[in-house]
């Protein structure tokens, strides 16, 4: 449903602003139904907001830089486009935050696999999620090792120390990946990640899907028809 919601929102014609208020209401209803604290969602949204803002401002900025058009005030159509891009991306990000906050990561992978995501991407995503914590531990260890031998500011070339640290983490990761691959082979790995769990839609899931898809489609087709 999240992906369909995103497709409907993103495919809204450029320059229209009002439909996003209705989409926003639907997203807000979903957030309230999820019982996830608004502050939690807001914090995550704020982390991603610079990227959304960058994407939105890209269009007016490129016009201004290419000097094709004079952009003198905020009434310029380029800003209207930028606002609609911001709203589209913002609402999509909110839906994605909601999705990853309400479901376990491995269930998301199972769901994506059901949606015909390539197996290799699934394997990479699962391993990345599993080992990101170990890599951050390795990074922390090298940081502690550096700090334990420095008092206050570094007197040597900071960039050199930092790049050495990065190289060390990369080498350790490389060594570790070889062992992990051996461990996978030793248990019969043949390029596929078979799963035990089978996802199935129940009646509540279907009702939820139908209700919200209807709401999104109603905004798109009935309330704010595309002209």
């Amino acid at each position, binding site marked *: 449903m999240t992906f369909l919601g995103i497709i409907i929102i993103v495919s809204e014609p450029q320059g229209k602003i009002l439909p996003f208020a209705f989409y926003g209401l639907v997203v807000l209803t979903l957030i309230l139904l999820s019982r996830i604290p608004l502050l939690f969602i807001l914090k995550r949204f704020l982390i991603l907001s610079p990227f959304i803002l960058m994407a939105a401002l890209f269009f007016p900025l490129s016009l201004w830089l290419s000097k094709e058009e004079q952009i003198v005030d905020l009434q310029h159509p380029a800003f209207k486009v930028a606002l609609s891009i911001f709203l589209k991306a913002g609402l999509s990000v909110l839906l994605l935050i909601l999705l990853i906050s309400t479901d*376990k*990561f*491995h269930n998301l*992978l199972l769901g994506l696999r059901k949606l015909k995501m390539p197996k290799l991407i699934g394997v990479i995503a*699962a*391993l990345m*999620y*599993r*080992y990101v*914590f*170990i890599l951050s531990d390795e990074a922390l260890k090298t940081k502690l090792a550096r700090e334990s031998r420095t008092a206050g500011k570094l007197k040597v070339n900071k960039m050199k120390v930092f790049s050495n640290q990065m190289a060390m983490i990369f080498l350790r990761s490389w060594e*570790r990946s070889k*062992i*992990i691959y*051996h*461990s*996978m*082979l*030793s*248990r*019969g*790995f*043949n390029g*596929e990640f*078979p*799963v*035990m*769990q*089978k996802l199935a839609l129940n009646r509540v899931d279907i009702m939820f899907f139908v209700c919200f898809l209807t709401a999104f489609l109603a905004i798109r087709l009935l309330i704010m028809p595309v002209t």
Partner: protein
Amino acid sequence: MSVAIHIKNLNYSYEPEKPVLQNISLDINPGEKFGIIGPMGSGKSTLLLHINGILMGEGTVKIGNTVIEKKSLADIRRKVGLVFQNPDDQLFNPTVEEDVAFGPLNFGFRSEEVAERVKYALEAMNLTGFEESLSHHLSMGERKRVALATVLALKPEVIALDEPFSSLDPPMMMQLLDLINDFEATLVIVSQSLLPLVTCCDRVALINKGKIIAVGPVKEIIKDDDLMKSNGLDLSFYKKTFKEFF
């Protein structure tokens, strides 16, 4: 009587001209608990990787009557469970249940059989209730037990353990020893920790510089001070400390 593991004239090197294993010959009996000891870098872990067919050097390695070669690898890996030193290298799935089910699923067991094997392995390792736990949230002792469960689920004929006692505190080590002593499969343990080996192994092989120096009952080998000292395993410090404090 047939042997569980038969190794004949095994040679292996990671780089040319730098042999890691030299002319290794060894027989391990069915149901035996066999230790491999030696100083750091002596080739112990490399030898262990040959038992599961991860590495294939020159010479012959047989598990039961099956020679390890490319065409027999699937069969070998079902027969030999390999547990790595660091459980983080062994546990690569998001949940404990998925990790334990990984082997049986790969070998094409039906889902009911997989569920039964997962239940059996988790029960054997006292991990019932951990099915949905995330591996990286578990303690080292728990992760070690999950790593063992991942191979137990395959109900292997041989279990090969690489440094199972490292990074464990004494209660966890005792718990692991109890579990190991209950295993019915043939067990091959590579360990730097000699004390736990004394309590769980029947025989050991002492390896140094890629060569087998001695094979025999664990207590006989470990009590031989000259043999141990000349092969980089001087235990006099431990003996002296134990005498002083206990």
